[in-house]
């Protein structure tokens, strides 16, 4: 069972994740940030809120890679990988939503200002797009866990996973960037990754933060994968 070559059992990347997160928490709070109108110090949320979404996208990407690998090899191991990465991706997505709702209440959607009515916020293309993407992944879990036949479940959910991933493109990467929006970022390009959008002093923390948060997500996912593997093995030996 314990395959020493597997990355899941290595500790260097877990340590790297912890170090990068400690750096994110200290550097993210203490290092200088550019002075921006309306945002002020809240721009530091870039290291936390935005990183949640980046981690979610990377985890969903890992998941779809495993789904394709499952369809190529029909090895049930990849099916388990694929599912657990989706679950952790969803958790990060929900955290991104929760943190975003706090951040926006004090910046572009201040409830104390009458021009930011509920209907204006409800029509936000970025929020709707992200909600669609997350709901499609919720449907993935429901679909997957409602099928009892193991092979059928693995195959159908792998195919659905590819469709769900394909839906990420219009729902969070294309449509929200074409429509006018109160939510900043992504006007005519990729938000945060664009060198003109993020000041150099912030990129020093931002990129390590993305790596740190993503590695933490991968760590949680691998723990869940290992637990499921143990369970499956016990079922087989019974």
């Amino acid at each position, binding site marked *: *069972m*314990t395959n020493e070559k597997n990355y899941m*059992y290595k*500790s260097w990347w*877990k*340590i790297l994740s*912890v170090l990068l*997160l*400690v750096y994110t*928490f*200290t550097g993210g*709070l*203490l290092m200088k940030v550019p002075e921006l109108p309306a945002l002020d110090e809240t721009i530091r949320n870039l290291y936390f809120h935005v990183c949640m979404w980046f981690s979610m996208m990377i985890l969903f990407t890992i998941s779809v890679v495993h789904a394709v690998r499952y369809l190529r090899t029909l090895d049930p191991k990849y099916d388990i990988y694929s599912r657990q990465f989706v679950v952790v991706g969803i958790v990060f997505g929900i955290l991104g939503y929760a943190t975003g709702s706090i951040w926006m209440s004090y910046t572009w959607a201040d409830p104390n200002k009458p021009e930011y009515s509920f209907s204006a916020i409800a029509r936000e293309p970025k929020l709707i797009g992200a909600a669609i993407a997350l709901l499609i992944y919720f449907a993935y879990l429901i679909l997957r866990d409602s099928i009892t036949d193991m092979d059928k479940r693995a195959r159908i959910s792998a195919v659905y996973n590819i469709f769900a991933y394909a839906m990420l493109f219009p729902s969070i990467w294309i449509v929200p960037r074409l429509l006018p929006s109160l939510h900043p970022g992504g006007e005519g390009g990729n938000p945060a990754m664009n060198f003109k959008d993020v000041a150099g002093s912030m990129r020093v923390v931002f990129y390590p933060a993305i790596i740190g948060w993503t590695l*933490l997500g991968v*760590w*949680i996912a691998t*723990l869940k994968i*290992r*637990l499921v*593997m*143990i369970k499956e*093995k*016990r079922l087989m030996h019974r």
Partner: protein
Amino acid sequence: MQKFKNVFFLLACMLFSVLLLAQNGSGKSAFGNTMRSNGRIYVVVAVMLTILAGLILYMVRLDRKITKLEKEN
């Protein structure tokens, strides 16, 4: 694993010695001054790092437990 333990222990010892060196002779500790400077943002940093440390320790414990379970199988 033992090697990592040793490295961590060494690092921890070094960190604690930094705290001890930070004590200056003026009666008040420099550490306390740091915590009160800059609008007390360091207090927030300390709180957030404590939460992070707690979560990471929990993850490490889970990891160890699962490794043990895997060896039992």
